[in-house]
């Protein structure tokens, strides 16, 4: 992503920019000037203006955004990073685009559907302060949690909670194409009131006979609303067996980490091949607590260090030590937090991959120390 090899042209450009503007990107020099004229203008990133905010459920809102002209569009199921200034400090979070690519192409807007995380730093602020007229920064869309390019067999979608957002976008996109293949959705939420896009999905399933909807509430729900013949409650082999009956081409899973693990285990038990499962990670997996010797993380540029026997991510440890390294998505996507590890071994909490002991660039938001580590922060 960031490790493209520098070419002679790019090295020359960055040398000129450093000479004339004291920054590798000339745009950094002009950014504040340009923003002072119109906050929608930017020479370094895409901007978007909030057009409208809609309530979806008690704790979920949909934000309608109009991206600036430099935004390049998306495929249903992709996500973007949105950066907002909260009391002077820039905060970045990642959300799936919940609208249709056609809506952006024809009407120039996209929507993000955001569930409020209690005690969160960003989502409660968004619910309260991100009002029509506000300008935010957005990244280009990215992600490979998208529909297959050649659709010939049926599809199964399994979602939990706010994990519905990319799947809703894909389903609506399929409906817009007149549902070329049969598809089923297993959607799990706590209660009947927690189904985000519940009414939209029910409308789609009424209109499209080739779309099978199963709304499943953990508290039992009311059969009348869910229209599902499957048992209510938590995800089980019954649910999986029912949707696999149609011999799907691909199964898409989106939801919290434990939910995805459970769904994958149930799919494996039914003999569904791993390589036909696509999943979208929402948030970091819980860090397994490694009992044992305490580790020390030292921050060489700041002359600070911290020692603990229950290390979190390096970013959290730096912040707990009073440092303020730049950070973005906090889930290993945006590389804003990338910094140089001088020595020590770290584990990537997403992939479980263990690093070498050598000096290398790492993303501190998704790595946790497994030995003493020195960071150039």
């Amino acid at each position, binding site marked *: 992503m960031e490790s493209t090899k520098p070419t002679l042209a790019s090295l020359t450009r960055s040398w000129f920019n450093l*000479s004339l503007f*004291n920054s590798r990107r000339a745009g950094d020099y002009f950014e*504040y000037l340009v923003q002072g004229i119109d906050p929608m203008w930017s020479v370094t990133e895409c901007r978007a203006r909030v057009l409208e905010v809609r309530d979806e459920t008690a704790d979920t809102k949909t934000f309608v955004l109009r991206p600036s002209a430099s935004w390049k569009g998306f495929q249903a199921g992709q996500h973007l990073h949105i950066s907002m200034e909260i*009391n002077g400090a*820039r905060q970045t979070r990642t959300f799936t685009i919940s609208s249709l690519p056609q809506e952006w192409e024809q009407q120039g807007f996209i929507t993000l559907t955001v569930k409020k995380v209690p005690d969160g730093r960003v989502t409660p602020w968004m619910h309260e302060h991100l009002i029509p007229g506000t300008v935010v920064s957005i990244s280009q869309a990215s992600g490979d949690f998208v529909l297959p390019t050649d659709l010939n067999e049926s599809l199964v979608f399994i979602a939990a909670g706010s994990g519905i957002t990319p799947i809703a976008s894909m389903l609506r996109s399929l409906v817009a194409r007149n549902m070329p293949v049969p598809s089923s959705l297993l959607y799990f939420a706590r209660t009947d009131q927690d189904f985000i896009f519940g009414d939209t999905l029910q409308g789609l399933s009424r209109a499209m006979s080739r779309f099978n909807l199963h709304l499943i509430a953990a508290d039992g729900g009311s059969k009348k609303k869910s229209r599902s013949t499957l048992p209510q409650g938590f995800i089980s082999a019954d649910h999986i067996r029912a949707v696999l009956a149609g011999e799907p081409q691909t199964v898409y899973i989106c939801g919290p980490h434990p939910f995805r693990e459970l769904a994958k285990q149930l799919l494996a038990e039914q003999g569904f091949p791993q390589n036909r499962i696509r999943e979208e990670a929402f948030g970091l997996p819980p860090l397994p607590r490694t009992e044992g010797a305490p580790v020390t993380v030292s921050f060489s540029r700041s002359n600070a260090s911290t020692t603990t026997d229950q290390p979190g991510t390096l970013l959290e440890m730096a912040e707990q030590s009073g440092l303020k390294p*730049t950070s973005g998505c906090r889930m290993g996507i945006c590389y804003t937090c990338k910094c140089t590890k001088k020595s020590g071994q770290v584990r990537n909490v997403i992939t479980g991959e263990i690093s070498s002991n050598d000096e290398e660039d790492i993303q501190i938001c998704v790595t946790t120390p497994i030995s003493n580590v020195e960071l150039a922060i």
Partner: protein
Amino acid sequence: MTIAANPNPEQLQHAPGALTGNLPRTRPSKETLDALQKELDELRDSIRADLGQRDADYIRNIIRIQRLCEIAGRTLIHFSFTPIPFLLGVTALSVAKIMDNMEIGHNVMHGQYDWMNDPKIHSANFDWDTACDNKSWMRTHNFEHHTFTNILNKDRDFGYAVLRLSDDTPWHPLRSIQIIYFGLLSTFFQWGVALHELEFEKVREGTFDLEEKKPFIKAMLKKAGRQVFKDYIFFPALAGPFFWKVALGNGMANLARNLWASSIIFCGHFTEHTQTFTEEECENESRGHWYYRQMLGSSNFDGNRLLHIMSGHLSYQIEHHLFPDIPAHRYAEISPQVREICERHGLHYNTAPFAKQYGSVIKRVLKFSLPSSLRKLTA
């Protein structure tokens, strides 16, 4: 200034106490230091908790003004054919360079705006319009100078290894003309700062290690090369036949910035009554003692808001040394509290008008041109 024959045993007996212009100072009690630590920590925490939109808006506005000044300055220098617009251009470019170095660069590199989480003004990335490499600056200034402030033989910013500002530095006949070095250092200040980490004084002492300094020299040459390219090749070449006019204008702006920045910085630690400390005195010092040393080792000057902004708020050097990572434009509002704490604990809050402080710097440079023996004769 004479050496007290029988100094009060409570008074510090090390030589600089009597010889450097240090005010008589008594060793602070543990209670005093603990109280200083508690009160100043609380003050710092209250400001940190209050940081927000106001500070973000402030620094971005300053950056906008700086950009406009630089663009205006370079445009005027480029297109001027008579002295007045040319001098206006030089003035605008000087102001831009001063703002970039002082209110923006120095402060951003202290991490004062890191909490904004904006890579453009984060200490890890920021670079400035001066010959000094940013990483070298962070090592010599942020770490060395701010940690070991005014500890003789440890804080190399005290006299920049060029000026003798205390009798602890041995006298040598060449010291008698140090006012000339002072003038040269002021004139070429950006190069003095750029070369600071070279520790050239070690050549004199015979402990210079070229191998160890190679990474620094490489980084320094890279950065210096870019600065020379910008001001003396690129922009002059854009003007074609008026190459030398633009090079002259840029050189004048660099000179103005050098003189201004050096004056501000000298007023922060070289004024008559800024105190020096010995290594023994500061061994295993508490945070309270660190605060105490910062307060006595720094000096402020008064002035209007424009002067404060153009000095990067280093006019509040005492507040800056106590809280180097608090956005500098906040120093004005906390200075009454700092002064109150200072005075309540019987510590001297060193402030005076700018001209007076600068005069006392010159006085100190002249005074220590002479060895103490000779000074006594002339006194």
